[in-house]
């Protein structure tokens, strides 16, 4: 942390400075099945596309997209919090990977 930032944090703690402006951020969390974990749903949908004539479809896997709006003052802070949310609840890391995008 830069010295100026440290001073800012201290000053805010003592109420000398207005709290850092929080703003509403939007994030997208992609939860996907790990490589090697079977995805029968993706397979069924892939087969359906193929039988509809889309022979170019070779592999299809289905994941989840979670859209979150959240209040935060810094992008790094949001990223860490989102990672924690993924590890604890949004993804089961035994079978799933996750990726976070912040707008």
């Amino acid at each position, binding site marked *: 942390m830069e010295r100026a930032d440290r001073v800012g944090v201290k000053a805010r703690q003592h109420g000398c400075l207005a709290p850092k402006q929080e703003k509403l951020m939007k994030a997208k969390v992609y939860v996907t099945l790990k490589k090697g*974990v079977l995805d029968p749903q993706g397979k069924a949908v892939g087969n359906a596309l193929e039988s509809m004539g889309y022979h170019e479809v070779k592999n299809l896997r289905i994941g989840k997209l979670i859209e979150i709006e959240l209040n935060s003052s810094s992008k790094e802070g949001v990223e860490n919090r989102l990672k924690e949310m993924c590890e604890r609840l949004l993804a089961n890391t*035994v*079978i799933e990977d996750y990726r976070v995008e912040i707008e």
Partner: protein
Amino acid sequence: MSVKTKRFKSQFFTVTDNGILEVFLKFGIIVFPGSNCDHDCYHAAKHIFGQHAEYIWHKDTNLNGYDCIILPGGFSYGDYLRTGAIARFSPVMNDVIMFAKRGGLVIGICNGFQILAEAGLLPGVLMRNRDLRFICKAVHIKVENNETVFTSAYKKGEVLSMPIAHADGNYFADAETVKRLEDNNQIIFRYVNANGQMTEDANPNGSINNIAAIINEKGNVFGTMPHPERACESILGGEDGRGVFEGILSQMSNVKAQMPKN
């Protein structure tokens, strides 16, 4: 006949005139929003096996005095996100984890198994069934390990019939974990055909190595997809599930009967 019933903390026992001590166990059945086999478990523990049973709301946080905690089947929180993922953060789960760490007996049946896996009390995860369908039928399972509290009433290799009713029972864990389960004898039931053979056809949901039920390393947390509590009365199609309760009763009653009386 004068029968005195004493209550010692919450452990119940009866002393009859001729001094025979009858010990009762206290089962706690956790009720999550969406649990629907809680009554089956209560009925089995209380009315079939004559023990004490109480419901525990998922917001309660006191598990003192219970001998065995059951996480019943159902659809806790509508199975949203992943089965068991949200229930795992219910207030009572901290206490269930503590209870298990202290060596207390915990059984997760169906959705209960999914919750225990999400909570990390049992390894692995229960994924969507191989054929994507909800399966409700009686299946054959083989007792792989009868040296546990939960299966001591069975014979090793015995083939049982128990009902399953789930959409997410496809047990999965990484190769290392599965090897550890196999090496430590932690696989309790496996799906087999009527002759006891482990075939792909006999595997209803695609579980790795036909795994239907496992136990933790310490041997006090048991997760099963087949429902023993629904197979305790012949009028309901079979009694093969009784062994799970009988095993607990015989082992725990001995432990309690040997405990000091004051």
